[in-house]
């Protein structure tokens, strides 16, 4: 057999041998009646909207043989521009979750009894009817953020049941932000920001790359603002006690004391006033500001916040001198006094620095602003207790988990004469305490509409046949909420009607077009009305407050997690398996402590400590890092569920158990931090499921950064040599071979030499690529124990390196197979399982592999993954498996394939159209989803291709290139700037 024929087989290795290594998946074709738009072997794409968080990104769902197997961002969608975060990628594991309820369950004397959907729905109808007859307001409803259509339907139904409209419950309600907006901008809502247009960005802890308002949107906006353009980079200051992922991407992280952000913000106002900003504000207001900020002298600010003078001065100089400054407020949950003051001050600061507020968008506001304040929620449950009610409808909310320390909720739910219905697909904590759990269709299975921002139209449509017999919540409401005259015969009609009414999607054509695009993005709406200047006395009350700094030397803070959001992601195995970007710990939720604090407390990494506040206590393992200010303890929210399925249960700890459920009087929101906490050693230790060996790179050239100043072209490039420090860039092309140092002759490739360029300056370390890779390539999820043993299977992982010089500075390094031209792994395999394809890809033939593991032993990047066992995809998770990719069996080595299945597909298309593959036609899963376009994939042999252009960049280098493996993954150094 000649090389070509073999390579055919090799290529097929990834496709036709999909069943080669494993007992074949039963019924790959899960559908009997094939819909018209389904062609076997061809994917069908359905535009829809992501509902994993209130941001509402547009998505395209990839359907193969009736199963959704992959979700990608919708390129047309204005919010996420075709990108998606890891939570969006993991939505699949919601619909296919093995713990998803197949039928409704009814609690009869403490036992759950399954029953039919119709039965369940009729129960609700009856209960509702009875309640309505009883009198006023006997039916209550709590819902997650939903689209207008559905919300209106709820309202209609409830009014019909003569009760009040539903309350929207979001654990992250942004109360202080809203209050501040209301008080300063006169808008009780959540404005959005033109971050991309700013030339300096100052954030007081807003984690806009993780959960804040609309993370994907702000990720690309941030990178647009922060990218390197003709030798220049805009600045980003993060002022927060804990360096979240967002903080890690800041040029300067001002580590301030807990609860001292407000001081700094007010101090900045004072500085601004001193240099005569805000002259065009009303005199009275100026005077008010002057006196309000009088106490915040530089000395006082530095003393209270403990930030270094140098940085503070830099900040002032940069901020005051900026043309388009943008200051944004506190993180998701900081709704205590400090948070509120900060947000007020922030808005004022914006007002001072840019009176026109050009960078604030009052029109396109974030839908999550619908969320009720925490105070209202508490009041809601309280009233359930006081006034009593008969029927409580909970739509996909989990207050029991999110407010664990609030007993009113429990009491209310356990109350016998209140019939609680949970429209939830999972047995979460709240569902456990309900009386009836009625699963409804999940977003990917249903017709709906959800505009992440008003007034944006963004539609949902069924991207697959439904997994369960559940009907859509809308239909349930139509059935149960109306005696005889429902506004529509089913929710789809209702939807169409309301879209026609609200957004003028009148005719069929528009409707279809809207569906195809995933929404209507060209709506022109009139500018929001002009603002009136804020009135001092509304502010004085709050700004005048000046709480004394807390006595205790230990404070605690719970961080929203990029992986689990408010906890709803905790049952998605991928999100648990992909380690936290900063701690690199999977499955577990450690408490993060500064080394000094740890030393002071006599605590070491992996010690299990007991944390105690006035609200509760818990035990958690310790992770020691410089990314947090001394004296602060940080845990991330989302894990530690008592129920919510096999993956969520018993994984991690829920830090909310330490926090008050109560709301701040001024903002009406809850704070995710507490100034008082005690820490105690338990003497036990817990092995952390960390996936990183060393935090620093010991002087090796893996993750490199360069000072902005040194990028100047006038500086001649340093002379190259043979050592790690000065080894030249050697492209995986014939020109990369130098007879003076290469024993091997150069070899050519046929038409293509696939390569990837990774711009470390763009990478924000969000891990979306890793999730996409899990989804695309059927990676096994190994679980916490295996991760501890060091057997995680991630093909693409974002390693983070602290700089030896300043440990709080972090660089993110996407690590994947480097597809070397002189791949050390290839030579040592006795059976040619890994080998060099004619297009330069380092192929791994699973069928041929006998598992000597020599390849990974000899891989200088350690990016190969071995199947130590047969990994499990419990039903129906296996339905998500990508049929284009082999499911590997035990004893086989695997690794990044540059998504060879996609390359093959592109080849077929190009062949049919008798042309070469166009640059950008092939995008591996990771490249496709990267919110900041840090990854570029293409053909190095095409001199016009983007990769080829990028490798000429002076920042280009190869990870430990001096080993001379000639990697095809070329990195661009991160650009740091010192001012």
């Amino acid at each position, binding site marked *: 057999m000649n090389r070509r024929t073999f390579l055919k087989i090799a290529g097929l290795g990834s496709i036709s041998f999909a069943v080669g290594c494993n007992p074949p998946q039963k019924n790959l074709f899960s559908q009997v009646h094939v819909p018209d738009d389904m062609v076997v072997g061809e994917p069908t794409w359905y535009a829809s909207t992501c509902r994993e968080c209130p941001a509402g990104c547009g998505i395209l769902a990839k359907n193969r043989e009736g199963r959704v197997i992959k979700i990608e961002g919708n390129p047309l969608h204005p919010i996420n521009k075709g990108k998606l975060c890891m939570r969006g990628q993991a939505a699949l594991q919601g619909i296919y979750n093995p713990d998803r309820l197949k039928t409704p369950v009814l609690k009869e004397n403490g036992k759950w009894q399954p029953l039919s959907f119709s039965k369940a729905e009729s129960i609700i109808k009856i209960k509702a009817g009875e309640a309505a007859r009883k009198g006023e307001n006997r039916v209550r409803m709590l819902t997650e953020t939903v689209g207008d259509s559905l919300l209106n339907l709820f309202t209609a139904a409830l009014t019909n049941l003569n009760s009040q409209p539903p309350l929207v419950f979001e654990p992250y309600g942004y109360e202080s932000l809203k209050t501040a907006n209301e008080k300063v901008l006169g808008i009780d809502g959540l404005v959005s920001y033109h971050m991309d247009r700013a030339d300096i960005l100052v954030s007081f802890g807003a984690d806009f790359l993780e959960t804040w308002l609309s993370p994907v949107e702000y990720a690309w906006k941030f990178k647009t603002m922060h990218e390197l353009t003709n030798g220049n980079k805009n600045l980003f200051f993060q002022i927060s006690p804990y360096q979240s992922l967002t903080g890690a991407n800041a040029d300067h992280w001002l580590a301030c004391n807990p609860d001292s952000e407000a001081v700094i913000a007010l101090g900045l106002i004072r500085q601004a006033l001193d240099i005569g900003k805000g002259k065009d504000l009303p005199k009275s207001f100026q005077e008010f500001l002057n006196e309000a900020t009088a106490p915040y002298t530089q000395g006082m600010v530095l003393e209270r916040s403990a930030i270094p003078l140098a940085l503070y001065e830099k900040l002032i100089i940069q901020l005051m001198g900026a043309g388009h400054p943008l200051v944004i407020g506190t993180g998701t949950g900081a709704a205590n006094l400090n948070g509120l003051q900060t947000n007020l001050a922030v808005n004022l600061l914006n007002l001072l620095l840019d009176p026109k507020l050009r960078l604030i968008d009052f029109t396109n506001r974030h839908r999550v602003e619908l969320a009720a304040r925490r105070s209202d929620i508490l009041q809601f449950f309280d009233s359930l207790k006081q006034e009593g009610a008969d029927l409580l409808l909970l739509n996909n909310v989990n207050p029991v988990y999110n407010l664990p320390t609030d007993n009113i909720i429990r009491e209310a739910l356990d109350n016998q004469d209140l019939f609680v219905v949970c429209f939830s697909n999972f047995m979460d904590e709240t569902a456990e305490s309900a009386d009836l759990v009625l699963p409804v269709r999940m977003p990917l299975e249903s017709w709906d509409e959800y505009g992440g921002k008003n007034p944006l139209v963004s539609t949902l449509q069924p991207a697959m046949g439904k997994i369960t017999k559940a009907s859509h919540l809308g239909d349930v409401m139509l059935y149960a909420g109306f005696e005889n005259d429902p506004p529509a015969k089913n929710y789809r009609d209702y939807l169409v009607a309301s879209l026609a009414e609200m957004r003028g999607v009148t005719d069929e054509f528009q409707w279809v077009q809207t569906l195809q695009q995933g929404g209507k993005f060209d709506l022109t709406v009139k500018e929001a009305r002009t603002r009136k200047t804020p009135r001092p006395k509304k502010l004085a009350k709050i700004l005048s407050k000046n709480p004394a700094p807390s006595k205790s030397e230990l404070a605690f803070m719970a961080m929203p997690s990029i992986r689990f959001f408010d906890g709803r992601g905790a049952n998605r195995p991928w999100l648990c398996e992909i380690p936290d970007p900063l701690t690199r710990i999977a499955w577990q939720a450690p408490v993060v402590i500064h080394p000094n604090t740890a030393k002071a407390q006599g605590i070491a990494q992996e010690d299990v400590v007991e944390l105690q506040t006035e609200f509760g206590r818990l035990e958690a393992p310790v992770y020691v890092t410089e990314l947090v200010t001394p004296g602060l303890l940080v845990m991330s929210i989302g894990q530690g569920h008592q129920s919510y399925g096999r993956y969520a249960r018993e994984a991690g700890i829920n830090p909310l158990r330490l926090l008050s459920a109560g709301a701040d009087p001024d903002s009406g929101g809850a704070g995710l931090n507490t100034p008082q906490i005690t820490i105690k050693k338990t003497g036990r230790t817990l092995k952390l499921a960390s996936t990183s060996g060393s935090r620093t790179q010991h002087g090796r050239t*893996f993750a490199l950064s360069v000072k902005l100043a040194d990028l100047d072209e006038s500086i001649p490039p340093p002379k190259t040599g043979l050592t*790690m420090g000065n080894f030249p860039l050697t492209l995986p092309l014939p020109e990369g071979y130098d007879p003076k140092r290469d024993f091997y002759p150069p070899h050519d490739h046929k038409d293509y030499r696939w390569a990837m360029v990774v711009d470390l300056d763009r990478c924000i370390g969000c891990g979306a690529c890793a999730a996409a890779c899990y989804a695309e390539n059927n990676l096994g999820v190994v679980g916490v124990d295996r991760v501890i043993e060091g057997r995680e299977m991630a093909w693409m992982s974002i390693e983070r390196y602290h700089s030896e010089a300043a440990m709080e500075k972090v660089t993110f390094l996407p690590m994947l197979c480097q597809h070397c031209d002189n791949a050390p792994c290839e030579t*040592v395999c006795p059976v040619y399982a890994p080998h060099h394809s004619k297009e330069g890809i380092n192929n791994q033939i699973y069928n041929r592999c006998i598992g000597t593991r020599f390849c990974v032993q000899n891989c200088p990047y350690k990016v190969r993954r*071995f199947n130590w066992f047969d990994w499990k995809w419990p039903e129906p998770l296996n339905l998500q498996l990508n049929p284009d990719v082999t499911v590997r069996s035990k004893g086989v080595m695997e690794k990044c394939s540059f998504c060879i299945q996609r390359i093959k597909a592109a080849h077929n298309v190009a062949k049919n159209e008798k042309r070469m593959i166009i640059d950008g036609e092939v995008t591996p899963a990771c490249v496709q989803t990267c919110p900041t376009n840090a990854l570029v994939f293409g053909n190095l042999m095409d001199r016009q291709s983007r990769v080829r252009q990028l490798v000429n960049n002076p920042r280009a280098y190869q990870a430990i290139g001096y080993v001379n493996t000639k990697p095809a993954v070329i990195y661009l150094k991160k650009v740091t700037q010192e001012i």
Partner: protein
Amino acid sequence: MSQLTYAKIDQTILNTLTPPKKYYWGIIFLLFLGVMIGAACWTHQIFTGIGVGGQNNPVGWGTYLINFVFWVGIAHSGTLISAILHLFRAGWRNPIARAAETMTVFAVCIAGLFPFIHLGRVWQVYYMLPVPNQRLLWPNFLSPLMFDVIAISTYLTVSSLFWYTGLLPDIAAIRDRSTCNRYKIFKILALGWTGAHEQWRHYARGYLFFAALATPLVISVHSVVSWDFALGIIPGWHTTIFAPYFVAGAIHSGLAMVLTLMIPLRKLFKYEDIITIEVLQNVAKTIVFTGLIVGLAYGTEFFIAWYSRNIVEVEQFRWRAFGDYRWGFYFMVLCNTMAPLLFLFKKVRTTIAALFIISLVINFGMWWERFVIIVGGVAHGFPPHAWGLYAPSLIEYGIMLGAFCLFFFMFVLFVKHMPSISMTEMKETLAEGAGHAA
């Protein structure tokens, strides 16, 4: 050996072949039990996956490869003693040559098992055989593992043939002194050897060539084993000194094992007159020599790592000495280079107990040397983010136990059913000795 006579030699050795006692079968049974445990562990591993072992990423090779190298090492001294010393005409080799060769053959068998055990998909192992097949898939002759396959199988074949050739005259001798069944068996085994001068004439020549060929082979085999690591580019693995260094180490451990085996044998079978203290002393001296070579290699590695100023190398060796596996490193230095130096004292050389203990110490140390090299290299390799540690699992210990038991099982069986000392060569030595006396 003045009081030795041909008759006495025959007597002593034939006495060892008398029908064994009960406790012998007891030992055999226990050993067999151990073998079964190992087998069970392996079966479990095959059905569950390699994951039942302790290996992980980055440390993909654990005790399996360590034991592989360890046993190959043991195997080497056998050939060294019987071949190289034969070429150098060192008379003191003769009493121990047979046992050493036997050790070689069995040790290679054990060693040969481990690559199979460590495979992820052992049921596909035939992919490594260079046999023409219908899909025309061939193994990769650039892979050190293929070198292994070739070298080890060659080594097994050659050493077995060498061993059997040596046995031939003795088998004949036993044939001539046995009756009924044993006679029948040995008659077949002896191939009709009668020690006629025509036979001897070719035999002597052939045996010489055997020795001449076995010598480069033995060196090449362990060089090849060392290249499993040296041909990689991993710091701590990729170094040119490995081949000779491994060969020396192999002989070092092998000689130690010879002592470990010979001393009890000598006691039980009353070989004192044949395996004199002189012989043991000579082995001990050789061990000192090999120990020094190994020590020199350790030193050189560290010096060059320091001299190279290559931060990866420097870190690797700093970590080797002070890192997580420093104990393994201390073991290897103390046991392999320091302990043998005690043999410089005649007192130690001549006390059987000391010889025995130190030989055990050296075996222990050599095992750790392999651990330090094989695990250490990858555990602390190029990418700091992928640094990790490794600890063997119960299954691995089970398999290790099985391997040791299998070895002693075979060896114990052998010594009781075959001449564990070459009668022929003893007589030859005796004759020459007489010649010199004359």
